[in-house]
């Protein structure tokens, strides 16, 4: 079973600002909220999936999106205390997406999201087209290997293997032996 941690960003924000505001704006607020998320992620075991839930967040501005979303994703595949953790961003709405997409583009990053009202997960941000196809094939099969993805997508096996490795290094896919799966916990 894949361990999973749920982090309610809205609750952290409310606690940080004495319950006054629900909008995640300003770099100072973003830094404060992110440092609390980091502490929770550090407690999770390496390889764990953390669901960072934006359901109770109103507005998200560019500075906060950069400070929280982009910084956390960078740290997951850097040499940082939260390296080798997997993050699923949940409770994302259209109002959050503008800022998130902007910072992902500027930083050349991608992440896995689950939009409010939709059960399915999606990959957003900057990835190569082959990587996107491979990622979607893995999510469709739930758990699979390079040969099966190559057969199912008619992509070259080397290209599929390279894409799987790249997606794993970016913590957009999990690897178990020779098989890959999306970073969702068992109850997600």
């Amino acid at each position, binding site marked *: 079973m894949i361990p999973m941690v749920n982090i309610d960003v809205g609750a952290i924000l409310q606690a940080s*600002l004495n319950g*006054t*505001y629900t*909008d995640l*704006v*300003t*770099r*100072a*607020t973003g830094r404060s909220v992110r440092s609390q998320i980091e502490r929770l992620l550090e407690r999770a075991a390496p390889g764990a999936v953390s669901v960072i839930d934006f359901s109770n967040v*109103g*507005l*998200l*501005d*560019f*500075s906060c*999106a*950069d*400070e929280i979303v*982009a*910084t956390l994703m*960078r740290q997951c595949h850097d040499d940082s205390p939260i390296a080798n953790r997997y993050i699923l961003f949940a409770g994302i709405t*259209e*109002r959050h997406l*503008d*800022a998130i997409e*902007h*910072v992902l583009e*500027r*930083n050349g990053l991608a992440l896995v999201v689950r939009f409010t009202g939709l059960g399915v997960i999606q990959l957003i941000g900057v990835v190569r087209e082959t990587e996107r196809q491979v990622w979607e094939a893995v999510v469709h099969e739930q758990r699979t290997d390079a040969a099966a993805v190559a057969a199912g997508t008619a992509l070259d096996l080397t290209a599929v293997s390279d894409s799987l490795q790249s997606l794993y290094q970016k913590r957009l896919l999990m690897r178990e032996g020779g098989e890959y799966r999306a970073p969702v916990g068992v109850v997600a």
Partner: protein
Amino acid sequence: MTAVIAVPEELNDRTFESVIDQVAQHPADARLIIDAHRTSFGTPYAFTALLCLAQSRMTKPVFTVPEIHSTASYWARCGFFRFAEDLYEIHGKVPTIRSHGESDVWLPITSITGSEDVHSVVGRIQERSEAILVNELKTDSRMIGRFAMTLSEACQNIVEHAGQGGWVMVQTYTWRSIGRRVVQIAVADAGVGFTASLAPSHARRFGDRWSDGRALEEAVVKGQSRFAEPGRGQGFTGIRRFLDHWDGKLTVRSGTARIAIIPSWERDAPQDVPKDVPLREGLSSFPGAQVQIIIPGKAA
């Protein structure tokens, strides 16, 4: 020595330059009379810049209240005198504001000194966003959140870079020369300005070519920041992303330069409508930074 500074009848970002030109002719400790008694119209940019002007003086200037009662009353409702009374010696009668329910000013002049102020402004602006942006200006409903984000980023410029507090104001009005309703965000401070803020991290690269204009290009066009860590400089790039979508206008004045992102409705306007240029240098010096964002309503 006392100098009289004549404030134009119509005070906006363009005509405010004449005020700066006049002020620049006098030393910082000279006593100034900012004579607005003939002024009949002011934009948010003008109000916030007038506060910056007073804040930058060593000797408290005099401010002469507009003689037209409806004008003075509007300036009072905009919150101008609430702050001007601390910064200026006011000459003339300041109208008393009585609350009659909802104000005709979307966001009166509000002081920004820290992150908490930005949270408050973003919260307040959203209370009437739908009524003003969607019902009055007939814009896309997706603009509600994007507008608040734009405001947030513009205000953070003060918190992150000015080194002292500043002001923000938001208002809708009819831009007569183009015949459209617009919403204007004005964010101004009399702080260190872009050149000084960016100099430690950027000036060496440019050597003799480092200037107020170059600093504005680096920050506004290239999204550079004085902070070295990755991801900084989101503010202006994010604002420009939305302005491209809305065909909005952005101007930033700092020091002796002014940069403008010019929308199609201004470029394509009739010949008699004053047009901006992308970069102006060699202007009279004015402290801090004055940001103006104009978003047009849907054309009739």
